[in-house]
């Protein structure tokens, strides 16, 4: 062998090195090159976030884009979404069909948001990224340091002016009935069964009374946001509330949760009660003759990265009046993650 000539071992090492580098780059940029769907990008980013150790979570941004959906009758725009990239849903001309279409999209968007975020069971917001990112000289005093809920706005739904001015459509919307009777696409379970861990098939009278209470009725003039919100609860407080031994999951209206064992009684004091109070007061839906606001809720232990200590908290997916920014900012005091 001549002096300075590369040995076969060296050539192989070099080739392996270059291939490894290309594979690494591929993992980083392939999703962009092959045009991965936004839903897949979102799902993967959430799984990345949830499975990373707490200290590294800040480096894995949530890449879920807020979908903007406009319900219209004749292809007209939704004024409140002017200038944004919008998915327009042309409603059928018959009022009943139009109402059904709004119920369907709302239920599916709620389910997608609930499903993509791990049905509230994934620990998504425990990493304090401000402390981890070198060179970040600013921090907001109230955002991540204290236990404040953080959010993802999964989608925004708006009505066009024509739909808003058609009470025959709005008055036929019955979201609760839709959740009870219709099946989640591709499954054998209704939305209600899915949100209550397959245990509840209809609403008990006590829950219907809760739905009927005027105090639980918040409405939006024309735009609602479907928001995923999660708050961490200190381990001691979680233990006192019984979250380390059991979970509370179900559909929430007002302060009542319709869970796997019927109406779940919640502590009236302590941190859980304040968390429920925070979530209970925010749900709102389009202005209709009856209350349509509901929230899919989970309180319990979160699944997180191996090695991290157990984390407890509550998650909720609910519809909120998008114009009520005080309520949204209160609900999402820790910040809103995702892509605008």
């Amino acid at each position: 062998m001549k002096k300075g000539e590369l040995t076969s071992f060296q050539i192989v090492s070099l080739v392996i090195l270059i291939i490894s580098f290309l594979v690494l780059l591929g993992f980083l940029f392939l999703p962009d090159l092959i045009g991965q769907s936004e839903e897949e990008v979102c799902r993967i980013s959430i799984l990345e976030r949830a499975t990373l150790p707490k200290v590294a979570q800040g480096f894995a941004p949530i890449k879920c884009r807020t979908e903007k959906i406009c319900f219209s009758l004749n292809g007209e725009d939704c004024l409140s979404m002017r200038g944004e990239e919008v998915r327009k849903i042309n409603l059928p001309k018959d009022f009943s069909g139009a109402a059904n279409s709004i119920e369907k999209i709302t239920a599916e968007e709620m389910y997608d948001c609930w499903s993509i975020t791990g049905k509230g069971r994934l620990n998504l917001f425990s990493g304090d990224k401000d402390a981890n990112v070198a060179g970040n000289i600013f921090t907001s005093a109230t955002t991540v340091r204290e236990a404040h809920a953080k959010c993802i706005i999964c989608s925004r739904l708006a009505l066009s002016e024509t739909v808003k001015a058609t009470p025959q459509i709005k008055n036929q919307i019955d979201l609760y009935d839709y959740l009870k009777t219709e099946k989640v696409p591709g499954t054998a379970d209704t939305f209600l069964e899915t949100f209550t861990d397959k245990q509840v098939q209809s609403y008990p009278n006590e829950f219907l009374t809760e739905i009927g209470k005027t105090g639980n009725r918040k409405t939006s003039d024309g735009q609602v946001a479907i928001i995923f919100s999660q708050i961490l609860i200190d381990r001691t407080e979680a233990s006192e509330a019984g979250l380390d031994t059991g979970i509370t999951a179900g559909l929430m209206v007002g302060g009542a949760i319709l869970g796997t064992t019927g109406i779940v009684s919640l502590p009236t004091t302590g941190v859980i009660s304040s968390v429920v109070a925070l979530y209970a007061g925010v749900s709102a839906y389009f202005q209709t003759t009856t209350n349509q606001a509901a929230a899919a809720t989970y309180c319990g232990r979160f699944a997180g990265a191996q090695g991290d200590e157990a984390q407890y908290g509550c998650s909720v997916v609910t519809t909120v009046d998008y114009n009520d920014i005080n309520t949204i900012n209160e609900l999402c005091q820790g910040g809103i993650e995702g892509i605008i």
Partner: protein
Amino acid sequence: MKKKGDTNLLGSNTVEVIIAAIGILLIIIALYLAYKRVTLDIDEENAKTLINNLQKKIELIPLNEKSEIILQGFDYVQGPWLIYGWPESSPDRPNKCYFNSCLCICRYEEKKPSEQCQSQGFCRKVPQNELVVSGYFDSNRVVRSRSAANDYSRIEDFVDNGDRIQITRNLIKVEIIKSNNQLRITQILQEEKEVDSPNNLLNLGQTLVFSGYRITLSKMSDNRITLYFPDISKSITFEKSEIVRIDFNGDKKTDIVIEPEFANFNDKSVFFRLKNYDSSESPPNNLVTENAP
């Protein structure tokens, strides 16, 4: 004298050292790309979407109309981000906008906003000659320098005359007023408090609403106070010992008299006595203005 094997060892190791160096370099490049991808990209994408949405919404507002819009802020990885505006006449505006008024969103850095926006921000040309961007300082979201947590002078940099809007991590509401020559973007305070009592404590950056008009305490330095009036996008600076009378719409009927009380309360807040002007009263000696500022 060379020992046996020296030449071979050097020759063989040189190639391996080069391969190792290439390997380390590639790993550093990959890590840098990964870091850039997960941190900066999402901030910049959000910032770009935000300014694009704002621009499109502004374009769709009819002339001489007022419109309120909600901007979705974002949980920035590196920030904060700010919206700035420079009118056509400003010699300081970023070159990106050539001869037009300039609306930009830029990450905060410790350098001149126009330079920061020129190098790293996203700017959009605005056809109106006059562009006014006015934000407010939200006292509940204190922005502090990590290197000097108690350096409140930095807070005052932000307060200034409200000529920027800080992007928060949640939602922001702004009011847009658009005419042929002027575009005014004013942040609407979420935590405005409507007051009817004459005596009010106003903290630095806070806004209160009196007789339907908003008053923001935007700056305090030495014995001087700067009040900002978002409804008319004007500021006025006066001594703590002076009284200001503001005529908001020129009709002399909705004047508000602002009289600082307990001037030495502290350097971050001041008591004001607010009252509607009574034309039968003779003007006080220390009145500094009778006109709209």
